[in-house]
């Protein structure tokens, strides 16, 4: 498949070289990338290759890669002879009953990946009954995104960003259900991230809490004491997140950071998590550590880039179905049944052979 595309490019280049004044220019257009039909993709990571085909190496770069080092050390606990036909993944979060605890996280400037950008993402997420968090650096107007949305809609702002006031005003206009404030990541998608370990600007969080009647969720928490402080300053939830990939910043994957944060804030404050969630099993592991919801970023963009709204829907539904499947195979019929014994952290190993 890749060869076919490369051959097409090579032919086009030959065509350009073959131009002479005497003959009409030879035009060989690039054949469209040969995408695998979306329904044939089996696991979410397979969308990544499709996005690469559509976007090419330069444009796909920001959404490539996953850090599976932590999730690959965790096993789930299969349980037998438990009827799970009544499986219910309903997740009550911030005043809404979500279809599942999986939502589409904030990603900036989605027109980089698809002409319809955030509007297509909203349509796909809503088709899968999944909530969406819209980035403050969205490439489409929030009103258009809201029009395409039938599931709960959330907006995101960077703590201390000059956009805060404007975004909060828009959020109430479009009836967003909550505001996610990103900390530790600078004041926009383009700005350099705050160095790891730098103190959080709590005054900026308080400014957002004061500026809106919506629940405020602090995104970018990695330490229990920060989570506790966020709740003290008025946060109604936190998102464990190490922003832009933990491996780049030398941080570990977020899965193992969830349990301490959950313990710090208590059962009443929902803890969400993001960072390299690629499989239904990854989501179940996060739930086992006490997370109440999971945000997916890059996989949704893979789906968007390759198949538009259908792709976003496909990615989200695959994760929903697989979360359900693995919960059934672990004998769990509802999110409240998920407990720490479901996941077990194993030693890091290097496979010697196979």
């Amino acid at each position, binding site marked *: 498949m890749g060869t076919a595309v490369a051959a097409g490019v090579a032919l086009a280049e030959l065509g350009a070289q073959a131009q002479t004044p005497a003959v009409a220019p030879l035009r060989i257009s690039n054949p469209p990338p040969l995408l695998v039909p979306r329904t*044939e993709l089996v696991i979410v990571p397979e969308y990544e290759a499709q996005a690469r085909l559509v976007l090419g190496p330069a444009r796909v770069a920001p959404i490539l890669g996953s850090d599976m080092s932590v999730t690959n050390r965790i*096993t789930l606990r299969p349980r037998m002879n438990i009827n799970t036909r009544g499986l219910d993944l309903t997740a009550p979060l911030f005043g809404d009953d979500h279809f599942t605890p999986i939502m589409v996280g904030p990603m900036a400037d989605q027109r980089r990946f698809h002409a319809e950008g955030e509007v297509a993402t909203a349509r796909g997420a809503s088709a899968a009954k999944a909530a969406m968090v819209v980035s403050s650096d969205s490439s489409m107007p929030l009103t258009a995104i809201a029009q395409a949305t039938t599931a709960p809609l959330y907006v995101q702002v960077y703590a201390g960003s000059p956009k805060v006031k404007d975004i909060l005003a828009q959020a109430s206009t479009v009836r967003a259900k909550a505001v996610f404030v990103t900390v530790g990541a600078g004041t926009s998608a383009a700005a350099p991230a705050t160095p790891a370990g730098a103190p959080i600007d709590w005054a900026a969080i308080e400014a957002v809490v004061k500026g809106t009647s919506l629940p405020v969720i602090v995104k970018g928490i990695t330490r229990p004491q920060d989570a506790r402080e966020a709740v003290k300053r008025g946060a109604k939830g936190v998102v464990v997140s190490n922003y832009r990939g933990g491996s780049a910043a030398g941080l570990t994957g977020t899965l193992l950071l969830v349990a301490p944060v959950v313990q710090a804030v208590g059962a009443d404050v929902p803890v969400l998590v993001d960072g390299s969630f690629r499989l239904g099993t990854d989501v179940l592991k996060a739930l086992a550590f006490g997370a109440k919801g999971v945000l997916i970023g890059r996989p949704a963009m893979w789906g968007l880039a390759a198949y538009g709204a259908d792709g976003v829907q496909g990615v989200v539904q695959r994760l929903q179905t697989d979360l359900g499947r693995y919960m059934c*195979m672990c004998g769990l019929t509802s999110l409240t049944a998920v407990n720490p014994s479901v996941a077990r952290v194993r030693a890091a190993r290097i496979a010697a052979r196979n």
Partner: protein
Amino acid sequence: MGDIERAWLTNPSRRKALARMAGLVAGSPVAAAMAQIDPHPLGEHRRALSLAEIQTIFDFEPLFFGNVSRTIYDYSAHGDGTEWSLRRNRQAFDWVDIIPGRPAVAVSQVDLSSEMLGLKMKFPIVIAPSSLQVNLHPDGEIGMYRAATAASNTMMMLSANNQTPVTQVAPAVTGGTLWAQYYAHEDLATTQQWVNTFNSVGCDTVVVTVDQQAAYYPRTLHDRNFGGRGGRGAGGRGAAAGAAAAPPALTGAARYGVNGRIWYTWQHFDALRKMVKGQLLIKGIMDPEDALLSIQHGADGIVVSNHGGRSMDFGPSSLEALPEIVAAVNGRVPILFDSGIRRGADCFKALALGANAVCLGRAARWGLAAFGSAGAQRAMEILQQELVQTAATAGCTKLSDINKTKIRADFA
């Protein structure tokens, strides 16, 4: 005009020109690197081995691959999801070391015969139930049964998903032992019919599989890159596997596109227990608590298995689940083990960790697919011989010598 072309034109000796060409090639670092890549290195030369040349189980695998269509290969070879658990099944054997015996004993002194659930075994190796064996070779299930019986009277479990019904397989071989594997059917009347059929052909021991509740084979069903052609499009199994196909009025698990045997309960197991007059084993147990429940509900034996990595991705490997289950069961019922056995040393490790016998799935299938019944028999004999060899090296003369003291396991 370059040197080479000029040489071709001016020098009648091609040999000389070729020598110059070689010199040019050797002078260029890129070409020198290319020259290192022999397109057909002798070391990669392969021809199909004859049965007499087969040395290990792994030798069968490429022949299996070559003998069947891609779809059939994929169905047999692949596992659930990302196949993380499928790989871990094999990797886990690396985490167990066998301690060499001082002194090692002679192979002739090793006798691994035992009795389990009334079954007299010369070697603690049996054939796991595995589906659709006619697809692998025309000899099919009967060929597998014949092979097992010829290989020192190895017991075979016949899959319920067979292509030769038990009524034909059971009488086809005299002197063999056949157990019947069964996937519980929600309708108890149907279950009773199955049990009656098993009884009518003398298959009194039934193995009921309880794992793979919500599993399917999306990879082989959906993905054309893996040869899957079955059931794509609207209404097919492939379509039903994803949430996209879910019609709006669904309830429960079906809302999320989750289907399958998720109705399994211990009550249903109890009903089956009442129906089966002979021994009832439970297959697919991967957790000590489930092992204890199995005993409470009257199972006569437990098969520790993650279905060869086909049931639940990111579940533990069967081998690392085994010691905890052995500890919980504490000898009350026999424990069989499967998933990942390819060598005699693998059998030894599972037995040392507390299994009473090991079951062969893919290992026997590769043999059957490669050479029919004769290949399957050879596969079993290879493992029997390798196990005896390993036992001798570890200083074990009888089955009970193969225990925890002969290995070091690291399942952290």
